């Protein structure tokens, strides 16, 4: 919750505490804001690439690996978006994804890749409906129900594979026979143009073209569909009547009900879609990443999807950005740790992190100074003779806000220095580093930005008809 929001209701002459640039950026639509952030990110990557003698940071292969790794996280994150926007916390995404892997493999074995895709969606949606029955109809605590589904799903999947896959050739209790995924294709004109620009070898522009080419060259239709889910979700939730009603359920279901919104119905649909998207994520893992169902193959991607949701501030473009950001270290590691080059490019990521943290430190420091200045102005304008209740409340708020900001700035600088020293002291990164980086990134983002995030107001609160 930002200070701005708390200040707005009070009749104060002071404008919201934001710089002109921040205001202008915030006025942009989601996709534009995140494109801007991505451009800045690519700039840093290109710069570091020049410094540390690797070409992998902005390579097309890295980008393709990142995208393939990101899709399950993205789909899970969008699943979480649907559920939480309707006011239901869905910690069971992981379990629903596991159901999706089993059903995806089963569907693909019977009816080919499209069958797998649809079966995965349906399987995940069944998990979602179970979650909805527990949380919406019976009002069970949403985290509790999610944890139960996370325990149920792997057991169920294992049981069903024991019954179905063990009898098949190549199948066993823990894995299915191999399944065929979708064919790969390259988007004709765009890929060629991007390829040409990449080969110019111009700083930043060619790097960006290389990264973008990973999105359009030798991709499968499943990847494209998953990426299209982002604008579709943005349109469905923010531009349609259904979306408005669904979001009301997550912000203020009591008001929604008084306006005639069927809260229970919308929550059911939202949580079922949520499970379905998580199931799609599972089907993607089976069809595109591993080529078979295997027990435990989701490896916590549902939870990372949840983290991407929070990183993206409960918005679809933000979820996409989070999914890409968290997958980048994995994608880079997949390319980086194959042959002789092991760990050189991953080590360069430490420098990227150091730069980003230093930037955070500087930004926090300036933000604090700006806030201080505004506070002084505010004091000068309000403390004319007497102190109004509003003014003293503002002073209190200011005193609360000041101290942590400076300390945070220092913390960011310290962490940045650690990262820089680590970068300078090593030649190549250890294999465990990329496996940890996304999670550390999530924590860093939450530490430095937690107060700016705004979850749906009624998420996590069981809703009962006619209460409140």
């Amino acid at each position, binding site marked *: 919750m930002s200070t701005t929001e708390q200040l707005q209701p009070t009749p104060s002459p002071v404008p919201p505490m934001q710089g002109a640039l921040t205001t202008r950026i915030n006025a942009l639509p989601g996709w534009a804001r995140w494109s801007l952030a991505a451009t800045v990110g690519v700039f840093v990557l290109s710069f570091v690439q020049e410094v540390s003698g690797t070409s992998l940071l902005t390579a097309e292969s890295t980008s393709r690996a990142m995208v393939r790794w990101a899709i399950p996280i993205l789909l899970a994150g969008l699943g979480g978006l649907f559920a939480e926007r309707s006011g239901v916390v869905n910690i069971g995404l992981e379990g629903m994804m596991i159901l999706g892997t089993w059903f995806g493999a089963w569907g693909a074995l019977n009816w080919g890749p499209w069958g797998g895709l649809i079966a995965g969606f349906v399987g995940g949606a069944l998990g979602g409906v179970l979650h909805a029955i527990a949380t919406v109809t019976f009002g069970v605590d949403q985290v509790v129900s999610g944890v139960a589904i996370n325990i149920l799903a792997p057991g169920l999947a294992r049981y069903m594979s024991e*019954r179905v896959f063990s009898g098949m050739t190549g199948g066993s*209790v823990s894995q299915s026979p191999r399944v065929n995924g979708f064919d790969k294709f390259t988007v004709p004109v765009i890929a060629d143009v991007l390829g040409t620009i990449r080969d110019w070898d111009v700083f930043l522009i060619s790097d960006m073209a290389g990264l973008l080419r990973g999105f359009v060259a030798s991709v499968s239709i499943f990847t494209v569909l998953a990426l299209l889910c982002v604008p579709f979700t943005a349109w469905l939730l923010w531009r349609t009547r259904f979306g408005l009603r669904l979001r009301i359920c997550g912000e203020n279901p009591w008001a929604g009900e008084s306006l005639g919104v069927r809260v229970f119905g919308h929550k059911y649909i939202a949580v079922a879609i949520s499970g379905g998207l998580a199931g799609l994520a599972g089907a993607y893992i089976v069809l595109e990443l591993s080529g078979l169902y295997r027990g435990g193959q989701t490896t916590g991607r549902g939870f990372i999807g949840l983290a991407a949701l929070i990183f993206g501030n409960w918005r679809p473009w933000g979820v996409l950005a989070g999914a890409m950001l968290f997958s980048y270290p994995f994608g880079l590691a997949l390319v980086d740790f194959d042959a002789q080059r092991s760990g050189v490019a991953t080590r360069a990521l430490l420098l990227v992190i150091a730069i980003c943290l230093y930037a955070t430190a500087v930004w926090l420091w300036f933000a604090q100074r700006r806030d201080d200045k505004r506070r002084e102005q505010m004091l000068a304008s309000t403390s004319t003779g007497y102190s109004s209740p509003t003014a003293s409340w503002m002073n209190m708020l200011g005193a609360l806000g000041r101290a942590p900001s400076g300390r945070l700035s220092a913390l960011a600088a310290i962490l940045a220095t650690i990262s820089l020293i680590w970068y300078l002291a090593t030649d190549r990164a*250890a294999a465990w580093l990329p496996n940890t980086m996304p999670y550390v990134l999530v924590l860093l983002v939450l530490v430095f930005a937690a107060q700016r995030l705004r979850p749906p107001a009624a998420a996590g609160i069981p809703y009962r008809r006619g209460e409140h």
Partner: protein
Amino acid sequence: MKAPLLRRIALAVAAPLIAAVVAILISSIVLALSGSDPIETFKTMLENGTRLETMIDTLNRATPLYLAAVAAAIGFRMNLFNIGVEGQYILAAFAAAVVGAHINLPGPLHVAVIIATAMLVGALWAGLAGLLKVTRGVSEVISTIMLNFIAVGGIVAALLPHVIEDPTAANQGTPQIPESGWLPDLNGIVEIFTREILRGRRLTGVLVIAIVIGIVYHIVLNRTRFGYDVRASGMNPTAARAGGVPPKRMILLAMIGGGLVAGLVGMPEILSDTHAYDQGFIQGLGFAGIAVALLGRTTAGGMAIAALLFGFLDSSAAILQVSDLASSEIVVIMQATILLVAVIAYEVVNRIKQRDEVKRASRMAGVTA
């Protein structure tokens, strides 16, 4: 006026009873659908369960589950969803195994140092999540999940290669802890009661620690000022704050307390089983412990029963695997169904209770008016 006492008792037993019946029903249907004989399967499980070896196996399995449940429950009582028991106990067990193998102390002291290390590491890791929550408002659900990944995939994976004993072994692990750091088993006590000589199975000594922890948990929560503050903060944070309970300190203390207990979860393995941390170290106890805590309604006794139930089910999975009657995976389905049905049943009973309360209040108000 109806007999409220009878109704109250009926409501109290209803939830676990309904959960058990529905869970058995659902697993029977699943068994029947997949071509197994449900009655025969349950009979085999029960017959096996009454054997002494199975009972000891059940207790051995229930001990870490109970500790994990208590660790999670401390947070739950304050509406803190500490999902991080998993990472806390694995990190703690790893640290304890390394420290235990590298020191040489006389008997009880050695064990004490190992236990203290584990508890300390668990508390530190949990305290980190608490610190993030109170200083930066980071949701403990997300931070503990992330810390789980960092602990297991990062710290342990990074440090394990530096402490392994034999790099060529198939199952790489830390060196074994010397015998002075082993906790004696409880077979002697069991043999006094049963007059049977136990072969093969050994009842873990950590059971005693778990019982002590359970008693301490119960007393601290129900008989001390601190426990009152914890429960008050969980039931009504606003009221607790108004009553002078510092919310931030309570969150930090609850996380650290949970971490202290979480550190003990890996101890049966370290102190009385493998005496080392290897790549096959038991995982997933943290999440199972959450299930046990929820099933046992976070009370010391309830969680003990739930842990024994889960321990028994785990133990019968092994038998089912051998017996060829049914797939052993049915056990996990039963556990999850019991949990899901139980939480729903608790919620329904809770609503009926609340409705009764409202009725009673309105009746009394009607009488006095």
